[in-house]
């Protein structure tokens, strides 16, 4: 690859082991153009968003990626141009006739390297779509470009590793069933020690009404999120279980390949049918919520179950929860995929106001929130410097809130990214974690 992207690239053998076909370099151009032709006929968004841009540049100052990295190609319209210029050259009459005049450019040996470099510096946060006069969503271009790269066998090692774990165990971390059960038992004993109550985390319990899909990180680092959810279900008397076959709210397919997304989503449908559940509740994962809520029907529908986010469920039952407000001052980081892509905006706020003494808002918030910088799976260690730049706007926002006791970051990627970002920008004393963590701590359920 002529342009050296800032992340490790997956090896051919590993990519092929996942079921992808690896296109040799000499055939890459033809295959890429073939994929572009196919996708433009199958996805209206690709054509309309590439062709409607008037190059006004309003998106530049609204994109945390451009503001943080100060790299021209991270400016949304310029990022889209990496694709648009090729698209115009081969698929539009004006591009074919007028060439450079109309903004068309040939596919060169640098093209795919640039795509890999810059489409993996877009967090797919959709903030640009909020400020574009036409509502052009650069995240959509990114998603499609990454899909084309993957179909050519080109993907970051990080994506391939996660997908391999997903295929093998049904979760991103590669946690096998025995470990799921062991971890669940450990958390049960922790809760027993804390509350004196026998709160269960049932795994693969048949005839459950509710299927809860946590993020696999809730079974490794973000234990309090899982505990908070378990406590809530216990108090409500919910007949719930966790499926060991799909212990993953995340769906990395949304972040690099549609077919992988479909396969992971299909597991959800299968697990729900097997365990007889009528309600699926997704845990604290941003893009996973977007994938489940917005893509399930199209990918594997129709599905017979109700689908809610854990925050929607908690909000619905909030009045029934015995909560004792924690004497802390918190602020809420709105994950992009909740606020802009998933419709979870006011629910977390209602929950927080019932659980803590004081909730302060950062600015901007809700649908104008800035991404944490880790969105769309940009969590590779080797991209640390870039990740810190991507998180710069968010760090500034959090610093500006002033004195707070706890930062609510209700998404697994945010939980992986923000501790590193805040440490980098001198705020490592700040305690942070999920929303269900707070619910768990505020639930007044100790055995007296």
């Amino acid at each position: 690859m002529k342009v050296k992207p800032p992340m490790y690239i997956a090896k051919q053998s590993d990519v092929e082991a996942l079921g992808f076909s690896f296109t040799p370099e000499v055939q890459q151009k033809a295959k890429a153009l073939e994929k572009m032709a196919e996708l433009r006929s199958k996805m209206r968004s690709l054509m309309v968003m590439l062709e409607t841009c008037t190059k006004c540049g309003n998106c530049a100052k609204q994109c945390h990626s451009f503001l943080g990295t100060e790299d021209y190609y991270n400016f949304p319209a310029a990022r889209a141009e990496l694709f648009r210029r090729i698209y115009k050259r081969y698929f539009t009459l004006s591009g074919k006739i007028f060439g450079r005049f109309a903004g068309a450019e040939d596919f060169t040996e640098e093209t795919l390297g640039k795509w890999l470099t810059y489409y993996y510096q877009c967090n797919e946060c959709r903030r640009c779509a909020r400020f574009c006069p036409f509502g052009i969503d650069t995240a959509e271009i990114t998603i499609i470009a990454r899909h084309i790269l993957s179909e050519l066998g080109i993907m970051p090692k990080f994506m391939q590793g996660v997908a391999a774990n997903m295929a093998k165990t049904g979760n991103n971390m590669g946690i096998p069933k025995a470990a799921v059960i062991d971890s669940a038992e450990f958390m049960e004993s922790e809760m027993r020690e804390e509350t004196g109550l026998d709160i269960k985390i049932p795994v693969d319990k048949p005839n459950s009404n509710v299927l809860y899909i946590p993020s696999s990180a809730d079974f490794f680092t973000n234990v309090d999120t899982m505990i908070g959810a378990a406590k809530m279900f216990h108090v409500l008397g919910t007949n719930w279980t966790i499926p060991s076959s799909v212990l993953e709210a995340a769906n990395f397919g949304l972040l690099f390949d549609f077919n992988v997304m479909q396969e992971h989503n299909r597991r959800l449908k299968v697990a729900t049918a097997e365990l007889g559940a009528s309600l699926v509740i997704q845990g604290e994962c941003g893009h996973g919520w977007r994938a489940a809520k917005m893509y399930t029907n199209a990918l594997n529908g129709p599905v017979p179950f109700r689908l809610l986010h854990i925050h929607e469920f908690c909000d619905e039952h909030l009045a029934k929860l015995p909560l004792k407000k924690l004497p802390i001052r918190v602020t809420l980081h709105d994950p992009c995929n909740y606020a802009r892509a998933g419709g979870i905006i006011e629910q977390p706020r209602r929950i927080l106001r019932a659980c803590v003494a004081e909730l302060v808002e950062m600015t901007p918030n809700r649908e104008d929130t800035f991404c944490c910088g880790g969105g769309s799976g940009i969590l590779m260690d080797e991209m640390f410097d870039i990740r810190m730049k991507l998180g710069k706007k968010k760090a500034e926002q959090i610093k500006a809130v002033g004195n707070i006791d706890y930062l609510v970051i209700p998404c697994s990627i945010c939980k992986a990214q923000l501790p590193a970002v805040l440490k980098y920008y001198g705020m490592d004393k700040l305690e942070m974690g999920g929303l269900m963590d707070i619910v768990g701590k505020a639930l007044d359920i100790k055995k007296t």
Partner: protein
Amino acid sequence: MLFFIGQVLPYIAAAVFVIGTCLRVAVWLKAPVPFPLTLFPAANTNTGRMLLIGREILFFDSLRRGDKWLWLWAWLLHISLVFIIIGHIAGIYYLTKQFTLIGFSAETSSVLSGWLGTIFGMVFLAALLVLFYRRLTIPEVKRLSDPADYFILGLLLAIVVTGMYMRLASDVDLPAVRAFMAGLFTLHPVPIPKHWVFISHFALVNILLLYFPFSKLIHMVGIIINRAMITELPPVYPPRRVNPTQGSNRSISLGEGGCRL
């Protein structure tokens, strides 16, 4: 030459404009929208969607949220353009007497028609110049721009300058222009009035119509189609309708053996 510009070119330009634009949009509409791309906060009803889209088209809400100055000049550009077009139709057809329809005297109507033309023309010209300047002086916008982006600004400037010249500096035979336009619309074209600025203005507008379907001016339709996509009603689970392929609950055969993406 004048025969071509006055009696042949307009038909070619109109055909290319209409057919070209329709074809481009037809290609878009032929492709499905496999996944709902709702941008939240979203509307919950189709009426709500239309309101959201309508507000964007009328007031450029999203642009205003970002850069107030860009919003102001872009909005002024478009609103003045709308009134210029309406003014041309009314002013030429009614020979500047259009305001007699709402009770003004013929004399007042002509003056009013003239003033409105001048004002909107000046606003349009000013907006073009501001946007041109902006495109040249903001580094990332300049780097982003193609020759086509400057071309369209230049073309519009030439059109408005020739138009303003006729408005302010010369005596155009308006009845002759009306007769010429009527000839074109009734498919009985007559020779173009031998007024060089008018001929230039007319020719430039025809070039604009010819160029339209191949350019970013398609954003006129693109805004509606794109915003229709991002305001799509979010899916519900399980699908409410009996036929799950309706509305936002449709499923596509993405993986049934033939349809991988």
